[in-house]
């Protein structure tokens, strides 16, 4: 049965109104698809995060009823899984096959799937498209070259659309090489403030507002977005979801004077004054989850102050952590001065030396922790444990026997980070512990940490 012809202009208008600021890109995509008879050359759609790439491409293809397979490269990177998913989508399998999907796929080979494609998208039929989201993740894999040359290799009427935050010219496609045909690029630039306001206004919370009040309320929402949300958030994030989350939090407070009857919708000064405390709180905790809901610093309720350690660690692990902290802050040349009782190094005195030490300490703090070999960590740990054992008679030998297990645990907890690939031979670690946590641990085990940090 022949499909009714598509009103292309109507579709484009609908899409343009749905995606403000993307008119040009929608028209470009529509032109590339054309009448859908012959697959176009590869298309690279690139732009930053939250610029509407995926949504626009999907909607354009869906509205123009172009058969396509949408693949997320976050999910599939292996050639077989990727091609199987493409074939399944071209076969028209909808979402009901969750209970019988793997039987045949298990038996098929990559080449079998590849040679099925001409049958699924023959040259005399309308073109099929493969939309690869996050295509840059396939950059170093041969499957990308295969997909780019799929039409040439198999003769199938298949086009490919790559979505990525990298432009095609950035190198991930290897343009100009014999493996990769030239591609058309469509850029999705960041939204302007007005475009952001238009997008956010599409989801304005006006469901409960009477029809006659919707106009003024929408104008107030526009003003709210322009005067409150964008100045507050757009400096740190221009993602639509971040702006939307903040707008949802603040809109009720902005509208409270209207609900209480103390102000009209048009009195924007009063409404702005009502939301000002929330804005100040947001500015103070700009990155906390309480407002943005996305970017988190957030020690959350698990952080405590003082000497109470919120992180429960075995006794041995605490000393290991301290040893790692000392090793990551001190230079190796300092160790001998700290731990060798027979060391008689020449000590320079004077104001100049003190200034230099302060300067070095500042520099070390800015550089952050440096990596240290496992041997050095164990040596420092053993010296600390020996001193501890002399003071408190703790079973140092027993504790030290577990040291490798504790290092593995600390690495697992990300308090230590292994920076060299090999676990034991020439292993290097970096201490991921903040200064506050290190001081808290030191207080917990009554260890004078300050006297072991020498920046010379």
């Amino acid at each position, binding site marked *: 049965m022949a499909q009714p012809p598509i009103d292309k202009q109507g579709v484009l208008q609908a899409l343009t109104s749905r995606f403000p600021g993307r008119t040009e890109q929608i028209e470009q995509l529509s032109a590339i698809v054309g009448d859908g008879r012959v697959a176009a050359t590869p298309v690279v759609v690139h732009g930053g*995060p939250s610029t509407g790439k995926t*949504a626009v491409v999907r909607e354009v293809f869906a509205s123009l009823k172009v058969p396509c397979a949408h693949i*997320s490269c*976050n*999910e599939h990177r*292996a050639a077989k*899984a990727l091609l199987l*998913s493409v074939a*399944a989508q071209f076969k028209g399998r909808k979402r009901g096959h*969750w*209970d*019988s*999907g*793997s*039987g045949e796929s298990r038996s098929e080979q990559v080449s079998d799937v590849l040679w099925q494609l001409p049958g699924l998208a023959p040259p005399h039929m309308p073109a099929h498209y493969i939309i690869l*989201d996050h295509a840059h993740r396939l950059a170093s894999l041969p499957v990308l070259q295969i997909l780019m040359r799929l039409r040439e290799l198999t003769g199938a009427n298949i086009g490919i659309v790559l979505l990525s935050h990298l432009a095609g010219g950035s190198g991930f496609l290897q343009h100009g090489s014999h493996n990769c045909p030239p591609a058309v690029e469509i850029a999705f630039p960041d939204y302007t403030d007005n475009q952001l306001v238009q*997008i956010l206004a599409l*989801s304005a919370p006006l*469901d409960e507002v009477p029809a006659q009040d919707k106009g003024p309320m929408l104008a107030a929402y526009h003003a709210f977005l322009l005067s409150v949300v964008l100045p507050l958030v757009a400096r740190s994030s221009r*993602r639509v*979801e971040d702006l*939307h989350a903040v707008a949802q939090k603040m809109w009720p407070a902005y509208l409270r004077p209207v609900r209480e009857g103390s102000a009209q919708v048009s009195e924007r000064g009063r409404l702005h004054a009502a939301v000002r405390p929330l804005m100040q709180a947001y500015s103070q905790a700009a990155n906390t989850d309480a407002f943005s809901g*996305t*970017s*988190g610093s*957030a020690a*959350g309720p*698990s*952080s405590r102050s003082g000497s109470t350690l*919120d*992180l*429960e*660690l*075995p*006794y*041995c692990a605490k000393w290991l952590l301290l040893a790692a902290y000392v090793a990551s802050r001190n230079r190796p040349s300092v160790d*001998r001065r700290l731990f*060798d009782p027979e060391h008689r190094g020449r000590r320079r005195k004077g104001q100049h030396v003190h200034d230099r030490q302060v300067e070095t300490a500042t520099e070390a703090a800015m550089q952050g922790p440096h990596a240290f070999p496992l*041997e050095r960590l164990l*040596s420092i740990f*053993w*010296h600390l444990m020996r001193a501890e054992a002399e003071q408190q008679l703790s079973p140092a030998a*027993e*504790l*030290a*026997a*577990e*040291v*490798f*297990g504790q290092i593995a*645990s600390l*690495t*697992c907890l*990300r*308090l230590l980070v*292994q920076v060299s690939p*090999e*676990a*034991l031979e020439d292993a290097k670690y970096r201490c*991921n512990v903040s200064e506050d946590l290190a001081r808290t641990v030191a207080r917990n085990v009554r260890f004078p940490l300050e006297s072991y940090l020498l920046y010379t």
Partner: protein
Amino acid sequence: MEPEEASQAEKATTAFSVVRDVPSKLTARVQKATASAVKLPAPDSSSVRADGIMLQAFPPVVDGEGRAHRAARMAACDDTWSAFSAQAQASLQSSSRAALRSVCRFVRDQHCARTKRRCQAAPDLLQKLIPTAVAIAGGVSAADHSSTFGDLVKMLQAEGCYAALLRPRDLQHRSGSLAGALQRVLRQFSGAADAGGCDMRALKGWYTEQLETRPVNTAAPPTTPGKRKARSAADQLSSPLDKLGLTSPTGRRTRQTGASPLASPMGKLQDLIHVFSEGQGELPVTVVLGMATCLAMLDQMLPAPSRSLLHTQPFRLMQAVERMEELVSSVLLGSKPPALMWGPGLLSWAHKQSLLHDCTPASLLHCMQVAAIGHFQAQPLSSLAAAAMQGPEAIHQVCSTLDAAVVQHAHAELCGSRALMNHPGGASGGGQGARKSPRGADRGTGRGGREPSRKSAAQSKDKLGRERGEVADAVAEAMTAWSAWAATCHLLNAAAKAFGSSSVLDTFALRTLYFEAASPSFLDDSREALQTMAEDIERIASPHKLTDTVPQLLDAIARPWHGKQSLAQEAAALQAILAEAQTLKDAPSTSTDAQPSIPGSSSDDHHAQPQAAAQNSQAAPRRHLAGPNARAQAIQSSVQAAREAHLAKVAQLRQQREAGAAAAVPVQKLARKLAAIVEQAAFDHLATHPTTLPGAKALCCEMGPSERQALTFAPRYSVHAALAKPHLYMGNCDQQKGAGIHAGLEDACIAYQLFLEYGESIDVADWFAGFCQVYGRSIIAPAEAAEEASAPGKGAPASRGRRGPRGSRKVFQAGTSGTAEKAAAPSQSTPQKRQRGRPRKDSQVAVAPQAQAASTHIAAGNDSSVPAEGAVVPEEQDNAPRVPMQELATRFTQATRELQLLGLLRPSKRGRRHGNFAQKLVFQSGGLPWEGQG
């Protein structure tokens, strides 16, 4: 068949003997499997035999103890520990329930919000954020939370959610994709074990089916396996929920030695987050991440693009210390009768070990289990523990049925202990404030130790009955003393919570009291904290504070078993204080809170109030370390000045103020009385631990040396000690101590002790040479051996430095090129290999053994009978049988394999060009790199 073949076949059949006969009846496993379907027959001889075997673990402790009594001990062991363990497990499981309920609430709220958002037809790009609950365990004791997320999934399923649990191993799919994880999620969502789809499309397809088949407002419960429970009203209004419980790689004690063990799960976790974020519009998912450290670590683990997709909300699970506090409060000092008591030695040792090594309540419970088993095996009266669960009355009943021998033995012990306790300087361990003579203690004293006279049968029966009664009384008395002790612990803890500062609260935390108040010196150590708390109580200036807090103290007293009866006097005194405080509070003129508000005159804020400052100065003499008089006078004068200024400022309220000040006098009296009660209770009931009472022997589990040997908190150290000092492990300390490395040791011990002599890596061929020397064989070139023997300090490889210097001792080339077998093999091809390097004289071959023997004698300190520790002692060359080199190689290989299996070494990649090396996985206190450099 040819005759030769037949004979060979016959030989083959006779070469093997049947190890195990074909069973003539059902095995235990089959019986267990068919027990539900087939009615079990009466206990046959096999079950009786099994009981007998189990009973062997409970040997007779007293002469004449019958089998029935032993069986009673065995049953009591089972019953009491089962009851105790069930209580403890219930307490530990309930500890995280509040946090899990919060997580469930968060999940439900997120779903409701998203349902609303879907109704508003928001654009897809607004649905990228994944609501994420981060459950933070706060430490490496996250092993305690092994079942936490399973419980969470069950809880979510019970609330009508689709929930799935992912563990780190689910993210490690060999194909490098998310197929395994997604398939597992789909299987758990759908409840179908054969759900074939393994991608996001399948998951979305399943969800679409659910939405199509189930109308939104009449959503049926999910099809996930598990019990369906009534759902809340909020869920009834919504569509089927989809939630995903996902545990991230937590601080489980994994010991992965592979390269970047966390890299692949982390990468997969990022992919999973991106995939779920992309599918939020069609398949809304809430993620619950389990973390061991803190939320800030999530930033370290996940890159910003992935992290920014998570809308996180932290939830804190209960930490090990809090779980321990809960365990002590509800179980160890709980409302059940103390059928099992735990001795001070056990408590201090277990507490120390758990803090040092594991930090989990599970290790404490394990200690207790071992101690309990030992107690029931060794204590004849332990059968009373089962009756103690019912209370003292049941003990009297059970005592009347005990064996006469057991009763007489227990009574004799009881009398002996009492005599010891009453003796000055006895074993009461009370220190100061020794406890008063227990009630009824005089009944049994003075009669112990007497031989039972041969009187008439009636008299002996009477005597036995009297002894039974005394034994039962003693046990009941110990239980009562325990109750008073526990109630006092609760009282101190409640008082510290109500009045004390943070330092006082640390001292009187319930777990601290439980583990440390058993020590005789506890009252001495905590005297200062007790005094501080008493001063804090005396500063109370408001009857409101008293009426608020005294009921808490009364509740605390009533919390343990029979607490109210044991501390009846204290409870009565507290009731009286409460009544008086209530009277003061109800009187309108005397109520400080009823006064008109004066700036800075909050009744509780004693720091800001001059009146409270005056009280402070009154309480100051209590401190023995108070400052000099001048300072006290200065404080007094400043307080007076402040008071005058304050009164001048509020002159219009002077009368009411004076009335309030007058009313504070009775409050102070009450506060002093309260402080005295708390202090006196501590000195009365904490001075002596209840387990030191004679009757507590029936219930008290203590940790003896044998039980301590059964437990090891540092398993790697135990392995090290068993291999390095086998005489300690084998129990023949006197014979083997200081014997060094000799051929009488196990091969693994020899190999390990030689291994310890080297640095972080060891050349296998060098190691094997040392191994052979222990057996009097040498694979070293004789000429070189002679050279080395003549050189001082280089007698044996065992006496070398940390790292065997390559080149200082040359072994055969074949030995350095491969395994020990290869090292052993070239003993025949010595001449060819010897051509490399310096020219050698053949005449030194014969000299080598003597020279080597001489060097070992030097190392042994010229004392052939007692060789020096660490020296290599070869067998007597003449008398000892020569072990073939091939056999030595095989044994050495087996020993190294065993060491490798124990995780003490691993093959090293270092120096592969020069031979095989083994790397040490045992930490050695080798010191710093510059040590040994002179």
